[in-house]
């Protein structure tokens, strides 16, 4: 079976019914502990951003005692990503298959599916799918705030337990103490959809697509300066150029491509022909696929403005709980705004570099780490642009609408 896998037979106007889903994929065998070996052999890694081996995660939850929960993290806090909501609204049964199989394999009774509040079609599709199947009685659907931190698993768990959407200190990790303080398996919807197909077809089948190091297919969201922005299912290891072409090709000459979303890495144009979309291929460029967001930036955009505004936005989305997000990110965002506006005392960029180094790995969650990864990559790829703005102030492109844009439904403060 070639691509698409997860998106096989889907329609844009409505979700696949249970009968349609079964006609396309067949029914899934019962899942038990042998699923862990199949996942290890398949080499499936999490598709929410961290690329953590799925089999390892399932085993660690299975090894815990007491009642356990599966949390499907469909919060999709990455502003330009829509792959999870597309998957949930088109193929809800595939995700439920995966969630229920994972629950059976780790010994969990409850399944909670977190879906952003601004995704009514995904919510409706899930409600319809749960009502259609008798095995989904223990599935709860939880609409969650539209916020960057909603994707952060400890913040999501704290929110679902009735408190604020703010990360907690780990350890303990969710597999040790998660929802209602019970061991919790947190998985991205796409990861569970792959799991559902590995359960049916096995690990060799899964590896027929993708690379040796990063097997399988992946859902990516391609946006920015392309003719037909949207979600694609690609074979991992696909050349970035091809993926852009599938999105209709660049709508203008490109200045750079951002891979990995707001925590991602900028790829300069000269490197584009050599980039493949898999973690090993991207590692050559200091990047990773993360949640699969690919943003093309055209030559008419101002990267300094894009980066300054994105950093200010990320700072605003933080919970301001730890030193890095109460001091470091606000300082960086303020300095970037001064550099972009040309109010620089000649040392702004050096301060930004220094603060970037101070912020990483010192918060409770990875928001600050990802923000400075994005920032440092921008400083590397656009050194002249930053220096020009620091010296001369705004360029003509500064007033243009941003390419790195955020849906209006995002909460301005973490709810």
């Amino acid at each position, binding site marked *: 079976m070639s691509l698409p896998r997860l998106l096989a037979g889907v329609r844009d106007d409505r979700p696949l019914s249970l009968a349609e889903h079964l006609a396309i994929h067949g029914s899934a065998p019962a899942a038990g502990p042998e699923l862990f070996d199949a996942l290890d052999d398949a080499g499936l890694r999490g598709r929410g951003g961290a690329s953590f081996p799925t089999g390892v995660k399932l085993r660690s939850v299975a090894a815990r005692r007491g009642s356990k929960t599966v949390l499907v993290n469909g919060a999709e806090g990455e502003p330009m990503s829509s792959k999870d909501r597309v998957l949930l609204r088109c193929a809800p049964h595939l995700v439920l298959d995966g969630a229920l199989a994972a629950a059976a394999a780790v010994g969990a009774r409850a399944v909670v599916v977190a879906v952003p509040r601004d995704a009514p079609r995904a919510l409706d599709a899930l409600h319809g799918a749960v009502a259609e199947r008798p095995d989904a009685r223990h599935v709860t659907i939880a609409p969650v705030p539209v916020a960057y931190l909603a994707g952060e698993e400890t913040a999501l768990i704290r929110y679902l337990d009735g408190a604020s959407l703010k*990360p*907690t*200190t780990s350890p303990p990790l969710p597999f040790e103490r998660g929802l209602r303080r019970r061991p919790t398996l947190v998985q991205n919807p796409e990861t569970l959809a792959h799991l559902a197909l590995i359960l049916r077809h096995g690990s060799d089948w899964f590896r027929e697509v993708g690379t040796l190091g990063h097997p399988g297919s992946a859902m990516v969201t391609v946006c920015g300066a392309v003719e037909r922005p949207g979600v694609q299912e690609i074979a991992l290891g696909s050349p970035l150029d091809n993926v852009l072409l599938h999105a209709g090709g660049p709508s203008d000459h490109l200045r750079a491509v951002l891979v990995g979303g707001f925590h991602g890495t900028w790829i300069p144009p000269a490197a584009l022909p050599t980039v493949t979309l898999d973690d090993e291929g991207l590692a050559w460029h200091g990047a990773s696929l993360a949640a699969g967001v690919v943003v093309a930036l055209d030559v008419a955009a101002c990267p300094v403005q894009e980066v300054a505004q994105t950093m200010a936005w990320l700072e605003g989305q933080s919970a301001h*709980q*730890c*030193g*890095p997000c109460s*001091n*470091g990110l606000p300082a960086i965002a303020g300095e970037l705004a001064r550099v972009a506006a040309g109010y620089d005392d000649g040392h702004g960029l050096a301060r930004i570099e220094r603060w970037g180094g*101070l912020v990483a790995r*010192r*918060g*409770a969650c990875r928001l600050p780490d990802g923000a400075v990864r994005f920032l440092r990559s921008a400083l590397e790829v656009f050194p002249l642009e930053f220096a020009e703005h620091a010296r001369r102030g705004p360029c003509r492109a500064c007033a243009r609408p941003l390419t790195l844009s955020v849906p209006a439904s995002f909460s301005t403060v973490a709810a």
Partner: protein
Amino acid sequence: MTARIRVDPIACSGHGLCAELLPERIELDEWGYPIVDGEPIPPDLLAHAREAAAACPKLALRLTAERRA
């Protein structure tokens, strides 16, 4: 047994006492928040590390001991 110091970044509010009591292993960033390297604490600093952990007004500094297999 290897002892390390860990900061709970949410609990920490940058009082900075720890850096005064254990300057050998803790420095403060420019906002007064501790920077720790996570390396093992040598035996001759253990007493100071314990004192620093006990002095933290937010109980954000912890001395963790782990058994090495």
